């Protein structure tokens, strides 16, 4: 089942076109990795999936992104509503420094529309923190400022924060590139665990990470899709020579 479908997507920064006719799909419950050299447009693409690209001044998007069949770019759709269904975790952990671990986790709920009792908030926070593999480490320190955790913990806090809003899709923009190797592997293991319940799209510049973690791999070059296929295929018998050259490290 196609959870997210990108059809002929083009994107610009001002006059500079950075995505050219991108077409791809992310199936329900799968992990799709987007790889490619710096500047190939992978971060731009993932930001178009939850309408974050247009937040940048001068940025523009044309084309369709279908979420459960509905085009998220149609004028009746509220971008904020899209982002509640399609969550995002960024490259550098960005917990809110003015909030505690607990408040950070449920920030999307507390500051959003719903009203919650303290008990409800705690329950939702625990669920999210467990899902992110952070609960055991912070359950006695929920009041601590969110920014006082280690880098790996902060990133898992951001994942918990994204999960607390109960999205259906999770977008990860190089979530581990600012972390040490062990924290990186923990994030990867987390992705494997989460893919049962969420559809995940992950941008990574680390090819081995894409190989370890994903079911589908999208290879991009200069804003275009070069190859999109099952990960085993892309890494053992890719169709396109450019893909082969990239994954074998001959360029990029």
């Amino acid at each position, binding site marked *: 089942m196609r959870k997210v479908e990108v059809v002929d997507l083009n994107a610009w920064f001002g006059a500079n076109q950075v995505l050219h006719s991108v077409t791809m799909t992310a199936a329900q419950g799968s992990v799709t990795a987007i790889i490619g050299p710096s500047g190939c447009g992978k971060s731009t693409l993932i930001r178009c999936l*939850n309408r*974050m690209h247009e*937040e940048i*001044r001068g940025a523009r998007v044309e084309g369709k992104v279908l979420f459960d069949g509905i085009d998220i770019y149609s004028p009746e759709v509220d971008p*904020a*509503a*899209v*982002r*509640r269904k399609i*969550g*995002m975790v*960024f490259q*550098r952990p*960005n*917990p*809110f*420094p*003015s*909030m505690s671990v607990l408040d950070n986790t449920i*920030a*999307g709920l507390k*500051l*959003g529309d719903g009203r919650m009792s303290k008990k409800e908030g705690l329950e939702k926070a625990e669920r999210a923190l467990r899902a992110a593999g952070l609960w055991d480490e912070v359950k006695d320190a929920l009041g601590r400022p969110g*920014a006082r955790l280690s880098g790996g913990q902060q990133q898992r806090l*951001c994942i918990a*924060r*994204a999960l607390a*809003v109960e999205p259906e899709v999770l977008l990860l923009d190089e979530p581990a590139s600012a972390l040490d190797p062990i924290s990186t592997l923990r994030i990867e293991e987390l992705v494997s665990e989460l893919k049962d319940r969420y559809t995940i799209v992950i941008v990574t510049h680390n090819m081995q990470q894409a190989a370890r973690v994903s079911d589908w791999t999208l290879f991009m070059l200069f804003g275009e899709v070069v190859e999109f296929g099952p990960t085993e295929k892309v890494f053992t018998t890719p169709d396109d020579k450019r893909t082969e050259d990239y994954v074998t490290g001959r360029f990029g």
Partner: protein
Amino acid sequence: MSDAAGALGPIRGARRTKDLAYRAFLGMCVVLAVTALGAIAIYVVSRGFSALSVNFFTKEPAGPLDPQAGGIVQSFIGTGIIVGIASLIAIPLGLLTAVYLAEYGRGRTASWIRLVCDVLLSTPSIIAGVFIWSVVVVTLGRFSAFAGGLALVVLMWPIVARAAEEVLRLVPQELREGSLALGLPRWKTILRVVVPTAGAGILTAIMLAVARALGETAPILLTSLGNDYINTDPMKPTDAVPLRVFVDARTPVAALHQIAWGGAFVLLLAVLLLSIGARVLHARQQKRLA
């Protein structure tokens, strides 16, 4: 041989002399600056401290027969009222301006607003006084604390606006992105994430603006006029501490000079406390954002 050693070894020879010379020069500059500040402070403290008494803080100026029995309580109250009125207007206005400039202002309107702020920042304060005098005092037909407050708004607003804008800009963009990505609207992002993060920095901006307002004399002179008696009606002439210092210093009465020194001392203390407090908060804010 000296070259080879110089690449990795300690500083020697001519280079060492130059180094010492520069250090000595910089040291002297520091001593000079500190001495100047210290001299002022010590002088004011030494002259003003003896003026402080219970009467000083609680009584109005006494008659010509016994001037040192009096005080300047009306000045303290007046400063409180005038700066209070000014703060009530300038702080919210300044913060809204800062939010606009930092979060929304990219186009020409924002550039114009910034220009206005920068001009006002360096405008002689007496011009603010003259402006409010002609717009408010003449229109209302009276001098008042209210007019005094407005004059100070002209001076405080750009400080709050620009200083707060700087602090808001320092809040990393990633925090805004993180909040937006949760599906939160822009205004909530600003109100509940950006501003609280800038927290201490905004307080610093406010403290700097208040410190400036406390010490202004010329605009108050033209708008609030001053008063020898306590006045709590904002629509009537009111006294202020710097104004009182000015007035008392110009009299031939030695006792009043003494009181003027006392006023100067209190002002200096207030401004110093606010400035140091602002610095401490600023340092803490830096640590928080790091």
